[in-house]
C-alpha cells in the first residue's frame, strides 16, 4: 500500500511539480479527540504492527534555569511505574507481549512512544500500560533518587569527552540565557535539587490532554485509531491556561571564540550560531543551500575541502537543526590536534565564500536532483512515516508538508539561497569553539 500511494503521489509531485497533485503522497488523517488532543494517522496494513507516540510541549526548553533538568527527569521517570504498577511490572508487561516502549526528549518535545504487534491481545495490553504511564505516573521517590545518582555520574562522565565539552560550550555561547543554552538533561548542581513535587507539577502543567499530539502509523482501522487516541489522552491532566511557549531567540550581536584545553589526540571544532525555526519561510533555501555547503556528504564543499582535498578529518559537515524557536546552525569537524588551526581556517574560508557567492548553478542542480529523487527513501518504512507524523503534528505543519517540500525545493534558485544565507548566517558573528588542539587560536 505504501507503494501504491508513492507511485501515484510521487509521480504527481516529481513529474508535474507545477500542478497540485490530486492525491496527497501520504494520506494523513487528522482529527481532534474529545479533549482537544491533535491526532495524526496513516493507515497501513502491510505489516501486522503499530507505531504510536504521544508528545507534549514538555522539552528542556520549558525548564526554569534554577531547576534545569526537571523536564528531562519527568520524561525519564514516566515509565518508572504508574497506577499501582512498579517499574518492573511495566517492563515485564511490555516485554511479555514483545512491545517496545520508547520516548522522545529534546528542547521542544517530550513524550512516550510504543511499537507493538497490532494483534488485539498484544496491542491492548501494551496500550493499557502506555495510557496509565502517561496519565497517572507515580514518580516513585526512591527511583528518583537512584536516577539522580545515575544521571549525575553520566553527566560527569560526559564532561570528560571533548565532543560534549564542545557542544556544551557552543550552546551556552550561542544562546546565552535562552533555554536552548541550557543543558537538556540539567546540570549536576540543579539535578541534585529535583523533587517528586517538581516532577508532578511539571507533568500537570505540560502533559495536558489539550496539548497532546498523538501520531499513529500502521495496522489499525480509523475507528480503532480514534478509540486508541481517546484512551491515551482521556486521563491526562486538564490544561490550565495557555499552552506553554518558548521565548524568542536573540541574534548574536558579535562573534565569540573559545578555546578549551583537552588532552585528546584530536581537536574538536564547532562553528555556528542560532539558525532557523520550524515553519520559517527561509528554511527550504537554507536546507538546500546547506546540502551544498556541508550537508550533502561527499557532494558537499566542507567534505571536499577538509577531507577529500586535504585529508584533515574523517568527518566535516554542517547542518541546521530547526526547532520551535531558532535552532542552531552548526559546522563541526575533528582533526589531529596540531592541524586545528589549518582546519579552522579552511572551514571559515569555505563558509565565507559560500555565504558571499552561494552555490553554483551546477551545484544547486545536483543538490535538487538528490533531494527530489531521494524522496521515496524518506518514507519507505513505517518508522520513517511515523516520524514525519510527529513532526507535522507537533509543529502544526500543513498535512501536505511532504509534497510541498519537494515542490519548494524544485523552485529554489541560487539567488534565494544566497539571499537567505546572507540574511541568516553572518560569518563575522559566529560562535567558534575549539576543544583540544596544540595551537588553535580561534
Amino acid at each position, binding site marked *: 500500500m505504501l*507503494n501504491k500511494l*508513492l507511485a501515484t503521489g510521487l509521480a504527481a509531485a516529481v513529474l508535474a511539480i507545477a500542478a497540485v497533485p490530486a492525491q496527497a503522497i501520504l494520506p494523513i488523517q487528522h482529527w481532534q479527540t474529545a479533549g482537544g488532543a491533535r491526532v495524526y494517522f496513516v493507515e497501513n496494513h502491510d505489516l501486522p504492527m503499530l507505531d504510536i507516540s504521544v508528545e507534549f510541549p514538555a522539552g528542556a526548553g520549558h525548564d526554569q534555569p534554577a531547576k534545569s533538568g526537571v523536564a528531562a527527569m519527568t520524561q525519564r521517570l514516566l515509565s518508572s511505574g504508574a497506577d499501582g504498577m512498579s517499574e518492573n511490572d511495566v517492563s515485564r508487561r*511490555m516485554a511479555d*507481549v514483545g512491545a517496545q516502549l520508547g520516548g522522545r526528549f529534546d528542547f521542544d518535545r517530550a513524550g512516550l512512544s510504543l511499537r507493538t504487534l497490532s494483534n488485539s491481545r498484544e496491542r491492548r495490553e501494551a496500550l493499557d500500560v502506555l495510557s496509565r504511564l502517561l496519565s497517572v505516573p507515580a514518580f516513585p521517590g526512591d527511583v528518583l533518587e537512584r536516577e539522580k545518582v545515575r544521571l549525575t555520574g553520566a553527566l560527569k562522565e560526559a564532561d570528560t569527552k571533548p565532543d560534549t565539552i564542545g557542544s556544551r560550550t557552543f550552546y551556552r555561547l550561542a544562546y546565552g540565557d535562552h533555554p536552548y543554552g541550557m543543558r537538556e538533561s540539567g546540570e549536576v548542581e540543579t539535578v541534585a535539587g529535583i523533587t517528586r513535587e517538581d516532577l508532578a507539577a511539571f507533568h500537570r502543567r505540560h502533559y495536558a490532554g489539550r496539548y497532546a499530539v498523538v501520531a499513529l502509523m500502521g495496522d489499525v482501522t480509523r475507528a480503532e485509531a480514534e478509540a486508541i487516541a481517546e484512551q491515551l489522552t482521556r486521563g491526562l491532566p486538564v490544561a490550565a491556561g495557555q499552552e506553554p511557549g518558548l521565548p524568542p531567540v536573540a541574534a548574536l550581536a558579535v562573534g565569540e571564540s573559545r578555546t578549551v584545553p583537552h*588532552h585528546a589526540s584530536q581537536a574538536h571544532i564547532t562553528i555556528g550560531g542560532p539558525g532557523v525555526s520550524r515553519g520559517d519561510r527561509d528554511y527550504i533555501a537554507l536546507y538546500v543551500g546547506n546540502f551544498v555547503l556541508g550537508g550533502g556528504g561527499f557532494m558537499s564543499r566542507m567534505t571536499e575541502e577538509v577531507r577529500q582535498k586535504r*585529508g584533515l578529518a574523517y568527518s566535516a559537515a554542517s547542518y541546521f537543526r530547526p526547532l520551535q524557536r531558532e535552532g542552531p546552525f552548526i559546522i563541526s569537524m575533528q582533526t589531529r590536534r596540531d592541524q586545528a588551526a589549518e582546519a579552522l581556517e579552511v572551514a571559515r574560508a569555505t563558509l565565507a565564500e559560500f555565504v558571499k557567492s552561494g552555490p553554483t548553478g551546477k551545484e544547486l542542480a545536483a543538490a535538487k536532483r538528490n533531494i527530489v529523487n531521494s524522496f521515496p527513501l524518506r518514507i*519507505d*518504512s513505517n518508522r520513517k512515516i511515523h516520524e514525519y507524523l510527529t513532526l507535522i503534528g507537533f509543529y502544526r505543519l500543513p498535512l501536505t508538508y511532504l509534497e510541498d517540500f519537494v515542490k519548494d525545493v524544485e523552485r529554489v534558485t541560487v539567488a534565494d539561497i544566497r539571499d537567505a544565507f546572507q540574511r541568516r548566517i553572518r560569518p563575522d558573528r559566529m560562535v567558534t569553539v575549539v576543544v583540544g588542539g596544540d595551537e588553535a587560536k580561534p
Partner: protein
Amino acid sequence: MTISGYLVRALLLALVATSCHAATDAGEHKLANGMRVIIKPDRRAPVVVVMVSYQVGGIDEVNGVTGVAHVLEHMMFKGTPTVAAGEYSRLISEAGGRENAFTSNDFTGYFAMLQKSQLELALRLEADRMTNITLAAEEFAKEIKVVMEERRWRTDDRPRSLVYEQLMATALTAHPYRNPVIGWMSDLESMRVEDARDFYRRWYTPNNATLVVVGDVEPQAVLALAGRYFGKIPARVLPERKPQAEPAQFGVKRVTVKAPAELPYVLMAFRAPALRDPEGDWEPYALEMLAAVLDGSDAARLNRTLVREERIASSADAGYDGIARGPGFFYLSATPTPGRSAAEVEQALRREMALIVAEGVTAEELDRIKAQAVAAHVYQRDSMFFQARQIAMLESAGISHRTLDLQLKKLREVTPEQVQEVARKYFRDDAITIATLDPQPLEGARRAAPPAGARHAQ
C-alpha cells in the same frame, strides 16, 4: 548507558539470531563465475537496496598490514579508469541515492539505497569497481590520513573503545580477531598503496562476492542485470584461508586500561562456540537465550538486579556474538554507580552468572524472550536495509539466510536446562578475559593510547 561498539554488534546479532521467516521468499542464484546473487522482493515502497559483500575482512589480514581491508574499502570510492575519484558518490547522489560501506572482521559491504528505477546504475558501478579500481598513489596518500583521523576519533580518544580493543588483543593469542578492524596506528603509518592493491587483487573477485538486492524488484530482471554487469568478470583462484585456530586458554586473563574518564568500566569476554550448523547445533541458541535472560529487556536480570534493586551499577549489559567466521564470544559489561568500584560490579556480574549455573532460569523468563523474538521478527521487516545487511552478514559467516525460519524455531525450542548447561560449560575462569577501565583525572593527562571497530565514509 552508552553502548560500546561490541555491544552494538552483539545487539545486531541478537536481532539476527532471533529472527525469522521474513526471508523465505528470497531467491538465490549463482552466476557462472561463482558470484552469488540473493534477491528478496519487498514491494512496500518503490525503493531498492543493493549490497555487494565480499567475504574478506580483518580476519584475512596479516601482521604488519592490519587495517588494510578497511583502507581498501575507503579506496573503493576513489575511482576507476571510467569513473573518476568521487564520481561514484556523485552519480549515486544525483540519482537520489544514499551510499556507504562498512568493514567488519568477517566481511566488507558496499551498499546503495535508491529509487527502484536506479537499480541498474548501482549494479553497473559496483561491477566496475569490483575489477577496475585505480588505486592512485596520490589519492592513497590523502585517504590514509583520513583513516588515521578515523582511528583517533573512533578509538584513541574513546576510553571504552580502547577497553574493547585491549580486551580482544588479550583474549586471543593467535587468531586474527585479536587485531582491530581499523588497524594498529603503526601499521596505518607504514601502509603503502601496494598493500591495498595486493589485497584487492587477492580478494575482490566475483567468486568471493555476494550481491544482495532487497526491494521492489522483479527477480528475473535483477538476475539478468546482474549477469550482464558481473557475469563477464572472470573468476580467480582465492588464496588459501589458514585456520589460525586459537590455542587453549589456561586461566583467567586480565588487562587494565588507564585513560581519562569519570567512571570505571568492566568488560568481560568468554570464549563460546559460534553457530556452524543451524540444524544440528543447539548451544548457540541456548547462549542467545542466556544473553536475553540477562539483558533482553528492562525486565531482564542484570538491569533489574544490579541497576534497579542493588544500585551497584549504572548500567549492565550482556551479549552473545555467535554469527562469525572465527570464534564466538559471550560478553558481560557494567559501569559502577558513582562511589562503587569496578571490582564490585565484576563480582556482581560473576554472581549473576553463578546463580544461573547453580539454579538455572525459569520457563517464564524464556517465554518472555520468545515473545520478544517473535515480535522482533515482525519489526525487522520494516527496514529493507536491515534485511539486506542481515542476509549479507549471515552468508559471510557461512550461514544460509534460508535458515532464518529454522533459527527462530530452534530458539523457541530452547529449554531452561539447556540455558543452565551452556552457562555451566562456558562460564569458567579458563575461558574468561576481563578488561577494566581505570579512570584517570582529566587535568594534565597526556595521551599514550592506541585503537577498534571500523567503517568507511561519512
